[in-house]
């Protein structure tokens, strides 16, 4: 039980540092969404942000080396508010203060990626970063809201 009396059994996901392990993310979030009546638009934002954060940890934080661990803990500290806490043992990286690349505007630009931090900041409602003795802890908060309320 957590401090708010919420049973968190089964609400923690541990992944190996392999991209293939991300296949477990969507079904897990789907189960959480069903259990906590999370609206589809919020579920979409959760999938988007967590896929981005976890894939970055695996590809960049762990440099693609397998068999490291990433842990995600889900809590709902109050009604209609949901938090995922992502912990890794990778070198420090703070996505909250890292510079955001501008949105692409032309097919002449050479980059095809670089959207991750921008998407994370626009689709999450709260981001909090801490370094830990082992690595990084990122808390990502979502408020249940219809898509029309999503931040521009």
């Amino acid at each position, binding site marked *: 039980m957590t401090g708010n009396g919420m049973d968190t059994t089964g609400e923690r996901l541990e992944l190996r540092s*392999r*991209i*293939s*392990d*991300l*296949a477990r993310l*969507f079904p897990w979030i789907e189960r959480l969404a069903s259990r906590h009546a999370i609206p589809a*638009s919020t579920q*979409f934002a959760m*999938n*988007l942000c967590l*896929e*981005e954060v976890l*894939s970055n940890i695996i590809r960049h934080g762990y440099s693609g080396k*397998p068999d490291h661990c990433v842990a995600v803990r889900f809590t709902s500290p109050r009604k209609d508010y949901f938090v995922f806490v992502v912990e890794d043992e990778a070198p420090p990286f703070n996505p909250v203060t890292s510079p955001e690349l*501008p*949105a*692409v*505007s*032309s*097919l002449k630009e050479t980059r*095809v*990626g670089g*959207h*991750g931090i*921008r*998407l994370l900041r*626009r*689709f999450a409602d709260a981001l909090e970063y801490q370094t830990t003795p082992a690595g990084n802890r990122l808390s990502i908060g979502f408020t249940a809201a219809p*898509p029309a309320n*999503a931040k521009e």
Partner: protein
Amino acid sequence: MRFAPLSRLRGRVPDLCGHFCGCGELKRGAEAMPISTEELEGGITRVILEGRLDIEGAAAVDMRMNVIAGTKKAVIVDLQKVSFLGSMGLRALVAPARAIKGRGGKMVILGPNELVEKVLKTSGVDAMIPIHHELQNAIAALQ
């Protein structure tokens, strides 16, 4: 060649490649992200994607999209049945759009849902690949 003892494999879930090799390859394939094409009048190719264009979905369609980008000059990517779009999915759209443009052609997007469209707009991809919600408009944009 060495084989892992069965006792070590029991209870393990194979990686997406279907092996127990730990290669981590993403081979969810056609079942992950069905992709089909339809040739329309005027040399226009409609590419219909279905499902989640997430990191696995993007991996599943990458090769087909590259082939299309290397051979077609007027392409509609139909996202009406796409329920999710992540940043790797964006790459799977931007890279072929750039290749098609490089060959003097054009790619447009048809019918994304509200959330998928928000991803396209947030990333600025809509400025590179025009979005249309009616097939007729998408076709007109390519003529």
